[in-house]
């Protein structure tokens, strides 16, 4: 199946809507759109009249709108066309209406709503902005912009809504948006407060939306079944948006199975609610129900071919047809065929190690396999995750399903440590599983970051003699600054740093802060305290309740103690000195002034110990020491770098060679393991590790490395076969040894080492 366009340039209607096959007019409207419709048409009620007729007489409603198509008002005809599903006609009519009434803000708002309903958010945003330029007080335009921001999880949404409510505290639509915003961050009390006016609104559609949100609050609090469901269905038995709304909040709190149950109810009472079919399909994929997900998305696409997320996801699924699935009791791996052999053994080992290690530390070892999908193209991963390209994360865990960029999707040069990222995601599998997905975002991220630091493949290997900040793994310098500038959020509000960041870089700061909070809790209260917090989340407590129950203190006290901990942890870290020293070291190195470069690099290390990111002072120091003829000091610097979690391939390669030269073969092997894990698709790193393992008397492990090399279709295929033959021969697996040495010699008959091995095998 091929699908052509990601999006249309102008809104067009699904074919079946144009043909008028009976969708109740409500079908085309999401709850918020309907509310907006009512808001702008309160006094011009032909549209409202037709629409309200739909509650009792769908066919009458359609006839009513058909009559409106003959109205002299272009804007009204546009509304009628939209309601009847002829989106192209509606688009053309709105365009005409704005031309004939260039100063009419209301028409622009309605046109923007049309774009919003057809997934063309940027166009909608532009029209709302145009409307506000005409009429700066236009509330509908403001709320249109708020809805755009809400969909993007932008913090400005709240500001817009609050500004509207400041002028009219009972504004129904603004309160509906305020309730959604509160519920996005789990503030059920505030959400309930905001629903007071919508729940008694005269407009039935707005009241229904309020009921759906009230039901969602009940679901989020675990108080199900919600009485609001029956009340809403009593008003409108086919109000599928009720369950779709509830499902949305399950999705954003990562309870995909619960979301699927709600979406299934939504499409059961309203089989033509295509948005619910789409969300259902995407969430079925998130729980690894591939076939059902695909079928459901196909259905959604048939009903509404213009949903970008559906089109993108179906195109992605088409492209996955040739992918293999490797499954056993522990891991189900969906992986690109070109990378399968090279990555499978590493992924399996990382996942099983992470499940066992992290699971044991938190008292929950999943007894089900972890599904891992690795995408060589970042945009495919993004589409698989959210239906849209352009997300900034590297991996995501949907319960027991982990999706990630494959090592080939991003450059190591930009600091992508895929193995550590996989460890992070598997830690999510543990925390989500341990709490039935009730864990808060920040705590799940915090545990994952903390476990990357403590137990992951690039963990910090501290030395007992270290003092001050050198005792700890370095965190990004921006976090030190954020702490000193009081930009870190109180723990109770830390989720907002992820969901609604207010400054550039806050999401990354929040990740690290969450990790630091977990580190602090483990330090001050013991590792078991982290498990107790998970238990509290599992029992339905929120962040404040969980912290206070597990730590037996107030969350304010935890905040204060955390701040003091960071003061101590970052004591002596001097960002300004570090940055200046790094610049001096780099400048001196470029001129070959190794003495100055070494001095400046040491100053950088003193100002910011264990900095192993990009750039790091340790490789610079190593170069400078080598430049001064101090190879042992160069090795020490690189070894410190590796212990601190540094993974620059060039630095590790130099280190491994130097360790070999210094007869420290065991250390060299450990470093080469890190190097191969960092660059698992590089023939050289895997070959070198295989050689080291064979040398160290571990032929079985060496064999895996050589098999990986062969799967990468190396330039020197004869050599790859020969090394495989050597490992098989060492394992006394003569037939495989013979086969591979013959394959090597078939390519290169004069390959001396292979000829010798052939003789040896046949002796």
């Amino acid at each position, binding site marked *: 199946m091929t699908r052509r366009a990601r999006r249309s340039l102008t809104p067009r209607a699904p074919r079946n809507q144009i043909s008028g096959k009976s969708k109740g007019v409500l079908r085309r409207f999401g709850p918020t759109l309907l509310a907006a419709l009512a808001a702008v048409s309160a006094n011009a009620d032909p549209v409202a009249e037709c629409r309200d007729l739909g509650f009792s007489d769908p066919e009458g409603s359609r006839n009513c709108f058909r009559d409106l198509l003959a109205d002299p008002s272009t804007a009204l005809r546009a509304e009628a066309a939209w309601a009847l599903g002829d989106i192209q006609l509606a688009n053309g009519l709105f365009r005409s209406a704005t031309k004939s009434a260039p100063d009419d803000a209301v028409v622009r708002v309605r046109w923007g709503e049309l774009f919003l309903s057809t997934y063309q958010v940027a166009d909608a945003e532009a029209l709302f902005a145009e409307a506000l330029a005409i009429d700066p007080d236009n509330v509908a335009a403001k709320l249109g912009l708020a809805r755009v921001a809400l969909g993007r999880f932008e913090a400005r949404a709240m500001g817009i809504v609050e500004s509207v409510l400041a002028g009219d505290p009972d504004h129904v639509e603004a309160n509906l948006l305020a309730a959604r915003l509160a519920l996005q961050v789990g503030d059920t009390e505030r959400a309930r407060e905001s629903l007071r006016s919508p729940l008694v609104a005269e407009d039935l559609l707005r009241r229904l939306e309020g009921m759906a949100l009230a039901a969602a609050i009940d679901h989020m609090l675990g108080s199900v079944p919600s009485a609001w469901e029956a009340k809403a269905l009593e008003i409108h038995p086919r109000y599928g948006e009720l369950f779709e709304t509830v499902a949305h909040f399950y999705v954003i709190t990562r309870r995909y199975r619960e979301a699927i149950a709600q979406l299934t109810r939504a499409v059961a009472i309203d089989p033509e609610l295509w948005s619910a079919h789409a969300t259902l399909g995407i969430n079925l994929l998130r729980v690894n129900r591939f076939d059902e997900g695909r079928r459901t998305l196909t259905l959604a696409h048939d009903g509404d071919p213009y949903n970008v997320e559906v089109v993108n996801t179906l195109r992605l699924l088409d492209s996955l047809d040739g992918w293999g699935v490797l499954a056993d009791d522990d891991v189900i791996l969906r992986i690109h065929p070109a990378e399968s052999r090279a990555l499978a053994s590493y992924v399996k080992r990382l996942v099983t190690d992470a499940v066992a290690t992290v699971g044991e530390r938190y008292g929950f070892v999943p007894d089900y396999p972890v599904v891992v999908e690795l995408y060589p193209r970042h945009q495919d991963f993004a589409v698989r995750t959210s239906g849209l390209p352009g997300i900034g994360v590297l991996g995501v865990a949907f319960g027991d399903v982990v999706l990630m960029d494959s090592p080939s999707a991003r450059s190591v040069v930009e600091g992508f440590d895929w193995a550590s990222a996989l460890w992070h995601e598997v830690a999510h599998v543990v925390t989500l599983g341990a709490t039935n997905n009730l864990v808060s975002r920040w705590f799940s991220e915090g545990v994952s970051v903390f476990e990357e630091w403590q137990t992951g493949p690039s963990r910090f290997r501290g030395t007992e003699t270290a003092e001050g900040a050198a005792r700890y793994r370095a965190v990004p310098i921006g976090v030190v600054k954020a702490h000193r500038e009081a930009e870190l959020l109180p723990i109770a509000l830390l989720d907002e740093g992820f969901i609604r960041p207010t400054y550039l870089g806050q999401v990354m700061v929040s990740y690290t802060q969450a990790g630091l909070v977990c580190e602090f809790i483990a330090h001050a209260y013991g590792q078991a305290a982290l498990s107790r917090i998970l238990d509290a989340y599992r029992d339905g407590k929120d962040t404040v309740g969980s912290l206070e129950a597990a730590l037996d203190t107030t969350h304010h006290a935890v905040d204060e103690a955390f701040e003091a901990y960071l003061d101590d942890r970052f004591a002596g870290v001097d960002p300004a000195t570090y940055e200046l020293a790094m610049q001096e070291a780099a400048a001196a190195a470029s001129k070959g002034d190794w003495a100055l470069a070494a001095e400046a690099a040491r100053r950088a290390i003193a100002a910011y110990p264990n900095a192993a990111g990009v750039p790091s002072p340790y490789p610079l120091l190593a170069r400078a020491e080598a430049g001064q003829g101090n190879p042992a000091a160069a090795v020490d610097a690189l070894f410190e770098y590796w212990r601190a979690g540094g993974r620059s391939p060039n630095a590790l390669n130099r280190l491994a060679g130097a360790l070999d030269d210094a007869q420290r073969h065991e250390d060299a092997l450990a470093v080469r393991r890190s190097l191969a894990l960092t660059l698992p698709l590089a023939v050289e790193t895997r070959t070198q590790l295989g050689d080291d393992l064979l040398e160290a008397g571990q032929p079985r492990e060496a064999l895996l490395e050589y098999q990986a090399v062969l799967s990468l279709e190396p330039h020197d295929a004869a050599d790859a076969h020969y090394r495989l033959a050597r490992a098989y021969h060492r394992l006394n697996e003569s037939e495989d040894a013979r086969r591979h040495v013959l394959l090597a010699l078939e390519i*290169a008959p004069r390959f001396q080492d292979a000829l010798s091995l052939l*003789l040896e095998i*046949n002796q």
Partner: protein
Amino acid sequence: MTRRTLLGALIAVAACILGSLGQAAESQDPAVSALPEAKGRPQARMLVVTGLGGEPDYARAFAQQGDASARHAEAAGAAVTLLTEEAASREGIRDAIEEIARESNETDKVVVQLIGHGTFDGEHYRFNVPGPDPTAEDLAAWLKPVNAKRQLAVIATSASGAAQGVLAREGRAVITATRHGRERNASLFGGFWADALDAPSADVDKDQRISGEEAFRFAERALATFYEDRQLIATEHPRLEGDAGSFIVARTAPGEPVEPELLHLVSRVDELTAAIDELKSDRRVLTDDDYFDKLQDLLLELARADQELKMRREDAPEPDAHVPFRGDFAR
């Protein structure tokens, strides 16, 4: 020094002729005599020219690449002329090619390698050197009198793809760093070509010699990996037209002298290698078992002959340490 002539002094001891492994192929090659001229006249001539760098980093890189190519060719037994800096002028290049034309004969192999920046104005490819830049047409005209039947041009510059068609000629393989003249960014190909000369893995057939084709394939792949790893759009796509497999541009090990009493073993190795090639060509008509059984038989015999050759060589006196790698630039 700006002009360096390196005579890959093939000081052939009377019996130190072709290395053990190269002889069969050469003896089957009508264009190459089985034995080189015993007086030490090289059978291969190479001109390496490094053009203007423009910036110090490029100048340094081009100089290193030129030096690597010249050094490896010399070690493989070629007579090498390396032109750098002022000597790498239009006239300097013309004169060097004229010299090659004078000194080479039909059975020789001639390699011309240009390293640096090139341009293409939509009509002419030009190689950037001090003074007037030579065009691809100039190079083609200067090479015309060279009567060596096997020639290789390696144009490792930006826009060099534009020179492909101009330099193409029967018996001449042409390697360019770019697919066409519109790939104008500074080329990295020359660096990867130089890497190939030092990389044992470039020698895919393990005959201890790196051919022009092997160096090209290595560099082509390394270049693609470079761009892929950095997720950059590749701004150059190297191109090889013709047979570059018969030009040896580097060796991975020094050649072994062949004592007269070992000639029969060398011949046996060559016969077995030819038999293996023949078996490989019959691969499709044999079952897997048959094929691998026969292959193993031949390879075992080859291994034993090779082992005996090695043992006999170990017993022989050490060769003169000053004798460079044997002169098998051509095979």
